[in-house]
């Protein structure tokens, strides 16, 4: 038996070593290692071997199988390898690679995603609300009284439909979501509300009758103005870069008190003053403030117990600054030459 094994090993190695084509190698594989091949037939002879020799012979057979397999592998590599490389056609490797088409997310979606990500990491959750709204949610609950000059900043589209008195409207700000969330949930709260808003403004390079905002609201037992500054500073540095400077200016919004407008150092000139920032060195990016007690009263929160801050920013404005786009209409024209840049 031992002799047989040695003999077959010798024979196999020399025959395989002489193989000149892939077909030869395959034929030899079947001859030696096939189901009815020579190696297997030796394995079937194992039953006739005395039991004390069985382990040794078994090992030899396994070794034989390994050697033959290795020889076949070598032969295969030799045939397909560098020795016969003359058969391989030379490529013009300067031809362009085959690019599978990969689409583009709209630049506004990308900015939304980034803003959301930053605030999610700061512990905020995303809330949403309807675009078709009532006067109450858009104005009164936000402490914007009827016939007040502060309403002039919020020109509004109204719906046709006589049943509603006062009429329904398209929300002119995402602050409506603040009210809806506070009406339905108890404090503490930490939400952002990304969404679409409408104002009947004549369209030009910096105005659009439809645009997008992200609103933020945080309410807890001991929220301070300094927290508002902290959260918005974290946001601006992540959005516009670590070296971004910030400036909080007092301002007026009916639904916050104290209120602030927030500027960042100009992304173009780093605060030196240029055309983009009107030589001021600063760019206004959002409005914010401590939630007005009248707003808390409107939703049934006790302003003595809870304090909070709110902020709102225009997504197009931020996208224009981030991407260097100077005409808001580009976002809604959907020119593929534009969209495919992002």
């Amino acid at each position: 038996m031992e002799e047989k094994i040695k003999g077959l090993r010798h024979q196999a190695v020399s025959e395989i070593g002489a193989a000149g084509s892939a077909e030869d190698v395959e034929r030899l594989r079947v001859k030696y290692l096939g189901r009815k091949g020579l190696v297997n037939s030796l394995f079937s002879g194992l039953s006739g071997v005395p039991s004390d020799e069985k382990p040794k012979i078994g090992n030899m057979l396994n070794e034989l199988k390994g050697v033959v397999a290795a020889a076949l592998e070598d032969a295969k590599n030799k045939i397909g390898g560098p020795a016969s490389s003359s058969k391989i056609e030379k490529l013009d490797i300067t031809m362009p690679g085959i690019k599978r088409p990969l689409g583009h997310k709209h630049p506004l979606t990308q900015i939304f995603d980034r803003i959301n990500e930053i605030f999610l990491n700061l512990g905020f959750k995303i809330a949403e609300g309807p675009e078709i709204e009532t006067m109450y949610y858009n104005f009164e609950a936000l402490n914007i009284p009827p016939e007040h000059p502060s309403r002039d900043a919020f020109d509004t589209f109204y719906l046709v439909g006589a049943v509603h008195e006062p009429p329904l409207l398209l929300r002119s700000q995402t602050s409506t979501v603040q009210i809806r969330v506070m009406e339905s949930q108890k404090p503490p709260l930490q939400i952002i509300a990304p969404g679409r808003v409408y104002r009947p403004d004549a369209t030009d390079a910096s105005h659009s009758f439809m645009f997008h905002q992200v609103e933020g609201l945080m309410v807890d037992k001991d929220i301070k103005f300094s927290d508002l500054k902290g959260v918005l500073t974290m946001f601006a540095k992540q959005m516009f870069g670590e070296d971004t400077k910030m400036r909080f200016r007092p301002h007026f919004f009916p639904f916050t008190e104290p209120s602030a407008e927030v500027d960042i150092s100009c992304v173009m000139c780093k605060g030196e003053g240029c055309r983009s920032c009107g030589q001021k060195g600063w760019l206004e990016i959002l409005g914010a403030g401590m939630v007005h007690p009248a707003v808390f009263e409107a939703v049934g929160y006790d302003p003595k117990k809870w304090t909070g801050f709110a902020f709102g920013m225009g997504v197009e404005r931020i996208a224009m600054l981030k991407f260097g786009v100077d005409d808001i209409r580009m976002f809604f024209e959907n020119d593929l030459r534009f969209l495919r840049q992002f």
Partner: protein
Amino acid sequence: MKISYNWLREYVDVKNSAKQAAQWLTMAGLEVTSLEEKDKDATLEIEITTNRSDGLSVIGIARELSAITGKRLKFPKVPGMLPAAVRDKQIDVEIEDKLLCPRYTGRVIEGICVGPSPAWLKGHLEAIGVRPINNVVDITNFCLFELGQPMHAFDYDKLIGRAIIVRRAKKGEEIVTIDNVKRPLDNDILIIADQKRPVAVAGVMGGFDTEVSEATKAILLESAYFDPIVVRRARRKLGLSTDSSYRFERGVDFEGVLFGSNRAAKLIAEVCGGKIGVLKDAGVKTIKTNSIRLSVNKVNKILNLALAPLEIKKILVSLGLKVIGAQEALKVELPSFRGDLKREEDLIEEVARIYGYEKIPTTIPKMVGHSERKSRQRRIEETAKDILMAEGLDEVITYSLIDAKEISHINFTGNEGVVAIANPLSSQQEAMRPSLIPGVLNAARFNINRKAEDIRIFELSKVYSKINEKEYEEETNLCVLMSGRTKMGWRQKTETDFFEIKGALEVLFERLGVKDYRFVSAASDIFYPERAANVLVKDVEVGIIGEVKKEVLNNFDIKKEVFLSEIKFQELIKFAVIEKRAASLPKFLPTKRDISLVVEKDVYINDLLGAIKLEGGIILNNAELSDEYFGEQIPPGKRGLTFSLEYLPLDTQFTDEEIENAHSRIKTALVGKFGASIR
């Protein structure tokens, strides 16, 4: 508001540059939006927020600058009472509605000489871009900008009767205003009338007939407080916004009514040489001053500061507020010129803005710790966008307000549910879209016109509908559009067809874990009926797909083939399974076999596959169409097909025989049921 820096410095002794002052004002909430320096003066354009009517005057801004810098405010010196020097000409004043006009003062000034203003007066007005007219009008304008109190001078001798009345206009009344425009009046508009006719629109503009001219010898000087809302209504109704209406709408200083009259009368007497006559002061003489209790602790808590009571007091006093007490609780009495201060928080803002927002620390609040941060729908929307993008589709965002005629252009049925806008700026904003299709078709046309050849776009956004007069619905739809060709560099360009857009949806469905979806031929108003299908998931219709018919494309001026699908995304995701579970991998390797056959063209692939799967039984792991071909070997009217089959043993290795048996069963069935010939 425009302001001259030199004029401003007449009231507050600030020596710093205009640029520095602009910076201070901006950081105190009076944003200087432009600064122009010339002729040793500077013009500042200041944005005064709607709550700060006191900031609409030089004095008001001087008061701010005084609070910021600590320099003393120098108020113009005017006697509290100006006794009448003559009493020849008399006038009566009557207020009909004291809610709309709580106070009206009328003062006669006689013997004046109307003419050009002196240089100092002209200079002040010209510095802020106001055109000088004559000395009387210029003085009322000067006082308007100086004090924020709008005033009007009537030519006394042109008033009919010796009494004026402040009342609502009657329907049918008219007035020709100073700008020589005839304006119809109505009951919503407050007017000043003499015994015959309206002579001024209260708080907005005076009348042409009683205007002061070179011939005027005596005037009636009006200084009053008109209700902000009635002035606002008149301004909007007449479409006439003036420096006067702008201030009344925001609320003028009640105590400034008489002060303004005194200031103007004194200047008129000095400049125009007249004698001050009788003052009629109708209505309320004074209003109650309110006070607010301010907690020092609360100021420090909200602002995260540690200010002493006296520091807070100093700031408030510098703004012209009266503060009583010097401990934790301060009583703050509000001056009449700060109608915006109503609550404790308003005072906290005053402290903060004068102290400086930049000096308030920056802290990070403790997280609230919401568990669910995103809704299921939002998460699936984000995933869907990623999948669609990976399929080579570009995302578009189109307007949700559209032209109503575009809704009919897609043969939309259900017009009664379309949401209409009452006040669109143009026909392009008259309706809320009930479908994403018009917007996406417009985006396609825009790009086709710019020679784009490979248009593969999608929009995932809201559509709107009216359920009934009270209920409206906003739902999220997905619209996918393909037109032109798909390019894979130089190797492959394929003309887009129905199956490409179908495949895009199938990949989306599979990746979202939507199973049991079907495409079923369906009638359509927008697609060619031969190339239209409804998309069903478990027998629920979730959308439509097809090739847009020419009639619709013509409406959108598109001259290329367009394939499109609109899916009710919210319906679709009811079937989505986004939580994945691992299945164990098969123990054995599969065996692959093909079947090629020829069948009549009208045999459906779905039916053939159904038969294959039925006959293949449990060992048939998968069967799919791998080729469709026509050509010389295929008789006309027939199609050549190849299916790739994959057999997979379940528990034990199976024999070639088992596969052969299954395979021939399948062939027999295809021949028997569908008249196929196996090749």
